[in-house]
């Protein structure tokens, strides 16, 4: 009985179904959705979001949040651009530098959150401004765009025989990695415990601080990776690259059924949500739905993603247990 309830009210399932429906309906109703090119464009668009959403899922499950990801992406692009200008022409070197920088920026977030025990929401609002600002300090009004064109074509090159870019494979592999860690290892169990009750986690020998710190580092590095892809795909490093992407990522993660209060959610749901948003947006664009309407739809989806499950639960639960539903934010360490 309880199993049934859990199964039915599991939001991931709903998202996956929604995705399938959108694809099916789109393919039938909208000319072009069925075409391979459509899926090429969709995948190119979701790659950066997916890359950042992977670690973000873990971060939010532990009850933290990182709003600075888009700025990390921007700063990475700027740095790569500047290095290129300074004559660093080896791609591997540039990528290595970018990832290193990303990890470093993540570490700064992690330090503020774990070292000084500050709420991550506040910290990363600060670094959101700081990192973006540094990107402007580095590049100012310049746009570095004289990369060798073959880099761009390499970044978006399709899998032989398909139209889907090969980067999707990278994303898939990373997703599998994150998925296993989160759902099938002791570490993952620790993350859920932290998200629900940090103090109990500490009493169980989970070093909450260290884990949180490394999660932020990972998020930084993955954002940097997204930054690398961004730079190469658009062949243009600018200070404002990826501006505002953080909301898109967080929207996807939440739509995927991850609880903003931590402790609940699955990676599968998040990936489905990322795809759902990308597909929906592109399909509706093809159907000449104006951007303004798209904005409204995105917002509504987000609201549905939290209202939906609760309504389902409410309908099922004949007995009122609301008084003991989980406390919204767990006690902040003070």
């Amino acid at each position, binding site marked *: *009985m*309880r*199993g049934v*309830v859990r199964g039915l009210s599991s939001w991931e399932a709903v998202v996956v179904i929604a995705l399938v429906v959108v694809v099916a309906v789109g393919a039938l109703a909208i000319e072009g959705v069925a075409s391979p090119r459509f899926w090429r464009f969709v995948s190119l668009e979701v790659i950066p979001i997916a890359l950042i959403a992977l670690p973000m899922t873990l971060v939010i499950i532990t009850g933290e949040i990182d709003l600075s990801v888009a700025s990390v992406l921007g700063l990475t692009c700027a740095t790569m651009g500047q290095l290129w200008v300074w004559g660093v022409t080896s791609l591997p070197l540039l990528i290595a530098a970018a990832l290193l920088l990303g990890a470093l920026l993540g570490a700064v977030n992690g330090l503020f959150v774990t070292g000084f025990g500050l709420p991550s929401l506040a910290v990363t609002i600060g670094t959101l401004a700081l990192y973006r600002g540094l990107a402007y300090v580095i590049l100012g009004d310049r746009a570095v765009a004289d990369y060798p064109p073959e880099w761009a074509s390499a970044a978006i090159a399709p899998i032989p025989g398909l139209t889907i870019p090969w980067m999707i494979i990278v994303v898939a592999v990373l997703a599998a990695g994150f998925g*296993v860690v989160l759902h*099938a*290892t*002791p570490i*993952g*169990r*620790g993350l*859920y*415990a932290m998200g*629900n*009750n940090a*103090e*109990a*986690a*500490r*009493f*169980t*020998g*989970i*070093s909450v601080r260290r884990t949180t710190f490394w999660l932020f580092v990972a998020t930084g590095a993955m954002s940097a990776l997204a930054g690398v892809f961004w730079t190469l795909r658009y062949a243009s490093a600018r200070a404002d690259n990826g501006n505002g992407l953080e909301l898109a990522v967080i929207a996807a993660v939440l739509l995927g059924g991850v609880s903003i209060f931590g*402790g*609940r959610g699955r990676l599968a749901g998040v990936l489905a949500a990322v795809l759902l948003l990308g597909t929906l947006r592109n399909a509706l664009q093809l159907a000449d739905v104006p951007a303004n309407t798209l904005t409204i739809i995105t917002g509504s989806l987000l609201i549905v993603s939290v209202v939906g499950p609760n309504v389902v639960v409410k309908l099922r639960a004949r*007995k*009122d*247990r609301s*008084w*003991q539903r*989980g406390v919204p934010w767990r*006690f902040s360490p*003070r």
Partner: protein
Amino acid sequence: MVVLELRDVSKAFDAVQALRAVRLGLRAGEAHGLVGENGAGKSTLVKILAGAHPADEGALLMDGRALRLAGPADARAAGIAVIYQEPTLFPDLSVAENIFMSRQPLRGLRRIDARAMRARTTELFDRLGVPMDPDRPARGLSIADQQLVEIAKALAFDARVLVMDEPTAALSGPEVERLFAVVRALCEAGSAVLFVSHRFEEIFALCERVSVMRDGRLVSTDPAAEVTVAELVRRMVGREVAEMYPKAEASKGPPLLQVRGLSRRGAFTGVSLTVHAGEIVALAGLVGAGRSEVARAVFGVDRHDEGEVLVDGRRLRNGDTAAAIAAGLALVPEDRRQQGLVMELSVARNATLARRWSLARLGLLTGGAERRAARTWGERLRVRSAGPDEAVSALSGGNQQKVVLAKWLSTEPRVLIVDEPTRGIDVGTKAEVHRLLSELAGRGVAVLMISSELPEVLGMADRVLVMHEGRLVADIPRALAGEETVMLAATGHGGAG
């Protein structure tokens, strides 16, 4: 005459039938005791009286008239004050505001009269005979202090009906005495009191009548004078309970836990103690003496400022819980909700959280492995739940405590620290826990037991260490340990150093 009456009240949580057609009447000027096994339904009954749960069937009557409780507010309006089993304070608000929340004394234009509020708070705590700063935020209060604030909260509005769900679980002798004095005064003034507890001596000390619950049924109500503990226990558990404190003499092995000159600013200073294999050492003392803090520091949850902790001769890294566990240390903490359990997770997850690494195969951990491990221990401790996938938040207080025990016993520790291990646990399970502890000691585990219950301390311990205001003041061997010697030391008067 009967003030508040329950008529055939039933309540179910999904699968679990928590209350079955319960009839109960609370009389003015009378304290009514309520006992029952863990999960018998006591707290559920309390929450229905509090308006926190709606009853599925049956009716509430106040002065013979039907009483509708849409929510806690209605219960308060009807003059029902409730002390819940788990403290429910606002950590950011001052003690005074916690006590008077949404009933603050007012002055002109319905503005809050802070001065009056503070004054009445101080007055309340003087009645309880404990010092407490009305302006101090509730955050950081020890469990005991929290419990005292809860009591003050209930006393604050002179209720016609006072319902207390194990209010004394966190308290020790003196506080309990004062609480009872106050409650008796309330009864004199004509209030009706419902008192839930697992401590029979308290029940008999306070209550005129006693009711017993079992599996959601109210099986009996008698005048306290006419029943014996043994009788009550039989009705609760449905069987004779074995010898209460079966501590077998174990051969004392080598020292496993050594604590040397441990200090933590603001909590305790210069604590040195040794626990040998096969030994059960009790750490007694008044509430707030600093026992839990010592335990936390030893286990590495808190960092200590001075001193060192050795397990089996090897020094533990300061503030490294993982290392402590690896070295074979285990701590069953005093606050199961905040420290012991992850409420939203399943019984299985909680029970295996401490040994998730050892359960993993090739670094991978499967739900199946967790459930299997959880089941074996769940059965051993008779955890009452809908199954390993049930969320612990749905378990009764005592059953939650059992899950915490399972969580740590399953790690097969060499040194086991238990902080109030039987707090809120029914007699049957209590005996079970005690048997477990002595069995572990028998198998050469070193046990350090923090407890506020003297009988437990005296019954179980090979040695009794006594703390007073953050210092170890006495080390009393079993032979010499008695009510007086321990209490004297605990209150800071002499005692063998």
